[in-house]
């Protein structure tokens, strides 16, 4: 069984895992709306910038993005200024996972907005609403229900992908248990890890199912 030190190590690892996933899904959703609107925008500049953003962050491995932020940026900074600077690994993880989630969520949000019937925008305009008013009051609120399922999916993916942070000196849930397994030679720690991952993803699944039902109240 676990001793007290091991228990707290696992709790702390779980907190690291959760923190990164939650920060990433929140910032990813906020910036994802911005990038999605860029993709839908008539402005060539906004459109192209958003396209390249998504292209880069979906097209390169998450692990590489993490390395760029944690390892490459300090080296570039050193070469450019001659002074050293280190990135806090937790901040690096927050930034990398948020940037990456933004790209995926932007595509999810864009698809949801495009799935809303064009008559909604026309009716809004015919009532004298500006594009901004129509988007914020009419179109985007109708996407919430359609966003819940893919957002839940994304959060579960994020939660598991956070195990990549073991490469930048962070002790997340998986690395903590792996260290214990190596130190003791017992496989039981992997079972603990699996149980905690499953417990967390179960909560996400249940909560998101409930949210989906609640947000769909206006549909018959």
């Amino acid at each position: 069984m676990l001793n007290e030190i091991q228990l707290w190590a696992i709790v702390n690892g779980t907190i690291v895992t959760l923190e990164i996933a939650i920060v990433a899904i929140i910032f990813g959703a906020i910036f994802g709306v911005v990038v999605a609107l860029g993709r839908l925008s008539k402005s060539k500049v906004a459109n192209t910038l958003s396209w390249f953003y998504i292209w880069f962050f979906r097209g390169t491995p998450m692990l590489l993005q993490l390395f760029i932020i944690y390892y490459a940026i300090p080296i570039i900074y050193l070469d450019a200024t001659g002074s050293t600077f280190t990135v806090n690994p937790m901040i690096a993880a927050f930034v990398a996972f948020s940037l990456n989630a933004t790209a995926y969520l932007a595509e999810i949000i864009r698809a949801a907005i495009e799935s809303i019937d064009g008559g909604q925008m026309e009716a809004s305009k015919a009532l004298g609403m500006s594009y901004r008013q129509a988007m914020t009051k009419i179109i985007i609120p109708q996407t919430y229900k359609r966003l819940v399922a893919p957002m839940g999916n994304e959060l579960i993916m994020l939660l598991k992908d956070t195990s990549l942070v073991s490469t930048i000196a962070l002790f997340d849930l998986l690395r903590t248990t792996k260290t214990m397994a190596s130190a003791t030679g017992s496989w039981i720690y992997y079972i603990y890890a699996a149980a905690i991952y499953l417990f967390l993803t179960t909560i996400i699944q249940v909560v998101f199912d409930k949210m989906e039902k609640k947000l769909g109240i206006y549909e018959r």
Partner: protein
Amino acid sequence: MSMVKLVNIRKSFGDLEVLKGVNLEVSQGEVVCIIGASGSGKSTLLRCLNQLERISDGEIYIEDVLSDKRANNKDLMKIDPVTVQSLCADLGMVFQSFNLFPHLTVIDNVTIAPLIVKKIDKKIAETRALDLLSMVGLSEKKDEYPSRLSGGQQQRVAIARALAMDPKIMMFDEPTSALDPELVGEVLATMRQLAEKGMTMLIVTHEIGFAREVADRVIFMDAGVICEEGSPEEVLLNPKEERTKSFLNKIL
């Protein structure tokens, strides 16, 4: 005073020219019904008025104020989006597919535009919305979501929603075409009521009986032009143009 004046309106979608020089003037309180086959440009004409579609050529005046002037798909006047919005708010529009906001209750559908566009006080907006809903006979449905209403009820809410912006002109784009036959009557009754109150109305419709009864003027459009216009008796009972005759023969 003319409420709407269209001067030589042309509209192309790519190579396809759907409006080929339409001139139309509607005066205050007038009820004008536009009839014609699908693809004759009737709906496009309405949609050009509130700039859901931009005209390719011509001039549009709303209450004698120039609201759009273009030639060869280029603006000939500076269009300020805020002015366009306020002009469009003068033009109420009712769509074939209702386009109610499904995430809002009936009363919120009616109050949302006055609240966010005109920034009217919430209490005043709700009182006005209730008046309008009782006018269309749906005050008891005010807290329902649109998905719980029949098509005819949804279309009546859509009429109330458009009226809430106090438009000077109401435009109807085939308002009963998506309805089951037994629900058409309730929507036409609401429109008849509006006409009797002196609302200026521009109605694209296939309901010839209704046009005959309420229209001051009937316009028959064919292939992007106004082919014949006049009183309902002239156009619907004694059409002069061959094309009008053959259209009426097909649908009556």
